[in-house]
C-alpha cells in the first residue's frame, strides 16, 4: 500500500470512529452505547491491521488482535452481562440535556482539528487525521463520563476515551512498543473488572447506581 492510500484509509476509519462516538454521545439506551463502543473498538482493530500491513510491523498485528478480542468482544460482553445482572432501567440519565452534550461534542471535534492543524512538521509523524480524531474521541469520552450518572455509561465513556488514545498511538510512526501496549490493555481489563465488581456490590447493598450516590460532599 502506498503511503497515500494508508492515509486515506486511516482518515476514513477516523470518520467512522467519529460517527460511532456521536452514536455513543447520543445513545438513549445503554445497549446502544455498548454496541457502538464495540463497533468503535472493532474499527480500531481494523486500523491496526491496516497500519500493520502498511508498515510491516508485526507488533501492530498483535495489538490489533488483542484489541479485537478484548475491547471489541470481551469488555462489551462484560458490560452486557452486568447490565443483565443489574436489570437497570434502560434509559440513560443525562446530567445536562442530550442536545447540549451533542453540541459540546461538536465543539470538541472542531477544536481538536483546529488544534492539530496548528501543529508544525511533527504532523508527519502521525498518519493522517489520527491525532485530531484521537483527541476528539478521548475528550468526548470524558464528556460522556461527566454528563451521565449511570455507572455503565461512564464505563462506556472510559473505553471510548481509551480507544482514542489507542488510535493515535497506533498511527504514530514506530508506534508504541508491544510490551507497553499489552500492559496498557491489561490495566484496562483489570480496571473494568474492578469497576464491574463495585457496581454489582453497590447494587446488592443499597439498590442504587454507584455513580448516582451523592452522600459524600463538602
Amino acid at each position: 500500500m502506498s503511503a497515500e492510500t494508508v492515509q486515506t484509509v486511516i482518515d476514513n476509519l477516523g470518520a467512522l470512529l467519529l460517527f460511532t462516538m456521536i452514536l455513543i454521545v447520543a445513545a438513549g439506551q445503554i445497549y446502544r452505547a455498548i454496541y457502538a463502543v464495540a463497533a468503535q473498538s472493532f474499527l480500531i482493530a481494523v486500523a491496526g491491521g491496516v497500519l500493520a500491513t502498511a508498515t510491516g510491523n508485526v507488533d501492530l498485528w498483535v495489538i490489533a488482535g488483542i484489541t479485537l478480542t478484548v475491547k471489541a468482544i470481551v469488555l462489551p460482553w462484560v458490560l452486557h452481562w452486568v447490565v443483565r445482572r443489574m436489570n437497570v432501567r434502560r434509559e440513560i440519565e443525562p446530567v445536562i440535556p442530550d442536545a447540549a452534550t451533542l453540541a459540546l461534542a461538536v465543539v470538541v471535534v472542531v477544536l481538536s482539528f483546529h488544534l492539530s492543524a496548528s501543529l508544525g512538521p511533527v504532523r508527519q509523524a502521525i498518519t493522517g487525521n489520527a491525532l485530531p480524531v484521537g483527541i476528539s474521541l478521548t475528550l468526548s469520552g470524558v464528556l460522556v463520563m461527566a454528563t451521565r450518572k449511570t455507572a455503565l455509561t461512564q464505563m462506556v465513556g472510559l473505553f471510548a476515551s481509551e480507544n482514542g488514545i489507542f488510535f493515535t498511538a497506533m498511527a504514530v510512526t514506530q508506534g508504541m512498543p508491544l510490551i507497553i501496549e499489552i500492559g496498557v490493555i491489561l490495566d484496562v481489563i483489570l480496571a473494568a473488572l474492578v469497576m464491574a465488581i463495585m457496581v454489582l456490590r453497590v447494587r446488592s447493598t443499597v439498590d442504587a447506581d454507584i455513580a448516582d450516590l451523592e452522600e459524600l460532599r463538602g
Partner: protein
Amino acid sequence: MIGERSLVLVLLELALLVLLGPLVTGTIQKLKARLQSRQGAGLLQPYRDLAKLFRKGTVQADTTSGFFRSIPVLVLAATMAAGALVPVIRAGPPAVPLGDALMLLGLLALARFLTSVGALDAGGAFGGMGASREMTIAPLVEPVLMMVVFSAAVVAGTTELGALAAHRGTSWILGWHAADFLGFAAMLVLLPAETGRIPVDNPDTHLELTMLHEGMLLEHSGPGLGCMVLASHTRQIVTLGLVSALFFPAAVAGAGAVSLLLGAGAFAVKILVLAVYLALVESSYAKLRLFRVPLYLGIGFVCALTALALRIL
C-alpha cells in the same frame, strides 16, 4: 455518462421519477410486509390507490378558504420542479439553467410549508397538530441536508447537483473522503425523517398520537388527496435520488441508447438499495416518542457538521 443533459433528457428523467415514485413506495411496503412475514399488497398497489383517488369526487370542509383547493396542485408542482433538478440517468449539468441543490431543498421546503398551510387552513385539530409537529422537525432536517450538500460542494466548487455528481465521477466507497462517510451517515439518519418513516413518522397509521405527515392530509379528498399522495411519493424518490447523486453517482460512460439504459438500470439499483435500507429500518425500530426525535435528528446534525468541519479544517 458525464456530459451536459439536454432539456429532453431532463424532462425524460422527471417523467421517470414521477412515474416510478409510487413503485418505490410499493416496493418498500412489500419488503416490509415480507420482513414481517406477511404477504402484503402488490407492488402496484400505490398506483391503484392513486387511480381510485383521482376518480373520486371532492368533499371539502366549510371552514376552508379558496386557497385550500389549489394547495395540492401547488405542492405537487413544487415537488415535481424539485425532481427536475435531480440527475437520474446521466451525471452532468443540465444544458438549460434550472437551479442547484439549494433550489431543490428550497422547493421541497416550499412543498412542506404549503402542506402545513393547507392543514392549518382547514381548521381541523389533527391537521394543526400535524402541521405543528412537522414544523418542529423541519428546521432540524433542512439545515442538515444543506450542510451535507455544502460538504460535497466545498471540493466540487459548485452546488449544481449534476455537476456535483459529475465531479465525484465513478469513485466508489474506497475513493471517499473522510467527510463523505460522515455526510452519508448524516443522510442515512435523516432519510426516514425526510421520507416520513419510522422512527420519526409512521406512514401506515392514522392514530392521532403518532402521525405527522398523514395528519396534514386528513382534510383533503379525491383528486386533491391524490395530488398530495403523489407528491409524497415523488418527494421520497427525489430525496433518494439526491442521496445517490451526492454519494453514488456511478456515471456510465459512453453515449447512445445503451448507455442511457445502463444509467437508468444503475439508478434503479441504487434506489432499490436505499429502499431496502428504509424497509429494514422501519421493520427493526420502534417509532420514537416525539420529544426524542430532536435528539435523533441531532445525531444527523452533528455528523453533517463534523463532515463540513472535516472539509474546511
